[in-house]
């Protein structure tokens, strides 16, 4: 594990303390967030997106204002963006895969990946979607993700159990870990940032990241560089956010680690999210 520099923690501390300081500048950063969807965000500010938003607002010298709305209401995230970001109620969302073309994304500020989650004691030999062990196991996965396509491609999807956390308001991604704990499934394949914050409550579980692969002939993407997103025409804000990401990368990385997010490249100590893009 890479250890994060002290400045990151310092930045975090400032962010948590510094909301009032921003008033002076007269700027407001209007962030769209879900009031009840941990580990991403909640009204009490406990999610990693809250922490990221605070870090960014602080660095911009802006007052942080949340526009709360349910991301998992009818029509899902697309309608959420339409209602809040596109309509101008808020100006930025904290999570969007880099390069998405429905909105305007910033430079990526972290890269994470889908992971296998299972009980350490089981000692499964899982390296990728082609690992023979996987065929013997009860698999759980979040529907409509690259994992579903990967299972489909291998004829394994019908025997697996689909979870639908992203479209079930009120359902915590923690339920994915609980399913492993209960033995409902042997292995859960899910987006690490969705469950990272809860892993400390399940010390008997372990995770292994899925590599991107071309094993079946066509690219399968399991790790994603993640950005913030603004409205398509809002290049001014995008540029300002890019500046912040560049300057505050260490602080942002610290915040994410603090919230249990495993950042792709943590293990090999390699470079920034932008650099990681080259491998995808």
């Amino acid at each position: 594990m890479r250890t994060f520099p002290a400045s990151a923690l310092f930045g975090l501390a400032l962010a948590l303390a510094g909301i009032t300081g921003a008033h002076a500048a007269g700027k407001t950063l209007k962030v769209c967030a879900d009031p009840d969807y941990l580990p991403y965000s909640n009204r009490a500010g406990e999610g990693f997106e809250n922490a990221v938003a605070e870090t960014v607002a602080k660095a911009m010298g802006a007052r942080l204002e949340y526009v709360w709305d349910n991301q998992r209401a009818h029509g899902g995230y697309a309608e959420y963006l339409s209602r809040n970001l596109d309509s101008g109620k808020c100006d930025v969302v904290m999570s969007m895969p880099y390069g998405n073309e429905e909105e305007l994304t910033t430079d990526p500020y972290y890269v994470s990946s889908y992971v296998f989650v299972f009980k350490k004691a089981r000692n499964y030999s899982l390296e990728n979607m082609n690992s023979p062990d996987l065929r013997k196991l009860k698999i759980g996965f979040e529907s409509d993700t690259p994992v579903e396509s990967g299972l489909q491609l291998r004829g394994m999807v019908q025997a697996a159990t689909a979870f639908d956390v992203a479209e079930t308001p009120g359902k915590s991604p923690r339920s994915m870990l609980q399913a492993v704990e209960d033995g409902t499934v042997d292995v859960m394949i899910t987006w690490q940032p969705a469950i990272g914050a809860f892993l400390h409550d399940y010390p008997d579980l372990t995770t292994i990241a899925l590599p991107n692969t071309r094993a079946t002939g066509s690219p399968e993407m399991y790790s994603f560089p993640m950005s913030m997103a603004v409205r398509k025409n809002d290049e001014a804000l995008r540029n300002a956010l890019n500046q912040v990401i560049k300057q505050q990368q260490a602080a942002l990385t610290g915040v994410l680690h603090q919230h249990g997010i495993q950042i792709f490249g943590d293990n090999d100590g390699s470079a920034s999210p932008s650099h990681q893009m080259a491998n995808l």
Partner: protein
Amino acid sequence: MPSPSVCRWRHLSAIACLSLALPCIASADDQLDKLSQDHNQWVIPAGNYAGQRYSGLNQITADNVKNLHVAWTMSTGSLRGHEGQPLIIGDTMYFESSFPNYVYAVSLKEPGRILWKFAPQQDKFAPSVACCDVVNRGVAYANGIIYANALDGFLYALDAKNGNVKWKVQNADPKLGQTQTMAPLVVKNVVITGVSGAEYGVHGYVTGNDATSGKQLWRAYSTGPDDQLMFDPDKTIDGATQKPVGKNSSLASWQGDQWKLGGGTTWGWYTYDPKLDLFYYGTGNPGTWNPTQRPGDNKYSMSIIARSPETGKAKWVFQMTPHDGWDFDGVNESILTDSTIDGKTVPTLTHFDRNGFAYVLDRRTGKLLSAKKYDAVVNWADHIDMATGRPVLNDAMMTKENVNVKGICPSSQGSKDQQPASYDPNTKLFYVPTNHVCMDYQAFNVKYKAGFPFVGALVNMYPADHGDVGGRFIAFDPISGQTKWEIKDRFQDWGGALTTAGGLVFYGTLTGEFRAVDINSGKVLWHFKTPSGIIGNPITYTYNGKQYVAILSGVGGWAAIGLAENLTKATEGLGAVGATATLADYTNLGGTLLVFALD
């Protein structure tokens, strides 16, 4: 076990009369074929086994249609898309609503009086796996029984007299992504149904159930080994080559086990030729949407298949779109007529495919006789090679991984989707509701659902040339490729057509205009704005010697998925919202049956 709720019923004298008039006829097809020749009734969803949607009734004519007015109406009790049509058996009308799939028997004697209503208790999960709105395309009838598919995959046999469930079987399982939207076809003593759900990797099939008991007689898959396909490698003919398909011809066209999720669903309109004893249907897109991930021709997705109704065995198969990269499902109806080709009369089937070509095949053998574009903007293929039956592709319009392709025509909705065309034996022309919509296809866009990133194709649909014509209703000769006339519409023409001996063709628009058109000139002679957009199919019948025309109004379906599901993002609903973004300015949801008559 879900118990049916039958609201109200009466004994119907009409059914009794009917069975007296046609005593003890052994097989349903004989009886139905004869009944369908009586133009006073409408006993098969497509009017007759040939799927012509033509009626010999001629009281309503080009001269007097201006006097057509509403006779009676009733709400279907369901908000979503109505892609079906009523049946008329004796003095009773039967129809099915969109989900929750109410089935009604309505008196013609006391117009609008509900004799019985059947409401299936359904798997609540079903609507969430229906790709393109929770539509239904209607009930079928034979021997005193109404056959109705519910979205959750159950096929119900309802006593036409009282709505009591005689039997039910589950032919599709929503938990496997399978749903049912199509109208069954009843031939002899077999009820034939398909399956929907290619979006979820369903392994497509068609099922024959015993009409009396519901027992499954056979099930024939669209992809896989010969035994699952019910293909005889030595006898089943490949329409394109006119030679036997050979051993495991489907398997050879897929990589590895991918055929197991091969798609090829079967949710369109079916037709039947009593003389050849063959029924005809089409198969949908191959499984896994990304074409790069499934090399090969992906047989027999995107194909027309001719089978025996009693055994399920395949006589011939013809694939329209090998290795689909556009979602050009081959499920559209095959209309059976005689065609004169080079001076010879040939029993043909005419099929207006989603891919923009009007295929004419010899329906005895599947031999390709003609394949002309029925919309000039079609650009994914230059033409169909008559020697091989294969499209000659425009490489620039093929969807590929990591390649953005702009201006593909038609869009995934096709030059025509399920909206059934009609035929007029007098003009020998086909009357075709079409989509005039193109698309930009971005093969790989990174996307986000709340909390989870993923990769998905981004499809944007818009009227051809970014103009204001999204649909064309055309009179078309598939042999010459000539369009005799066209009516331009703002949105896709997603409702079916009806031709009558009165020199008229009826159809409805997505904005809800129900129209009577002069069959020779294409002039709109009469129109009526119905409460909702029309994606249903007109029928005509007589009661007490007077001609009526009926239509289901109730917008939805893929054409209006944005409106149906209250979505605003252009990329939702398989891209269909973009094409109909302002439909909400013209109409609203809600199912209504409307019946029209002269004074």
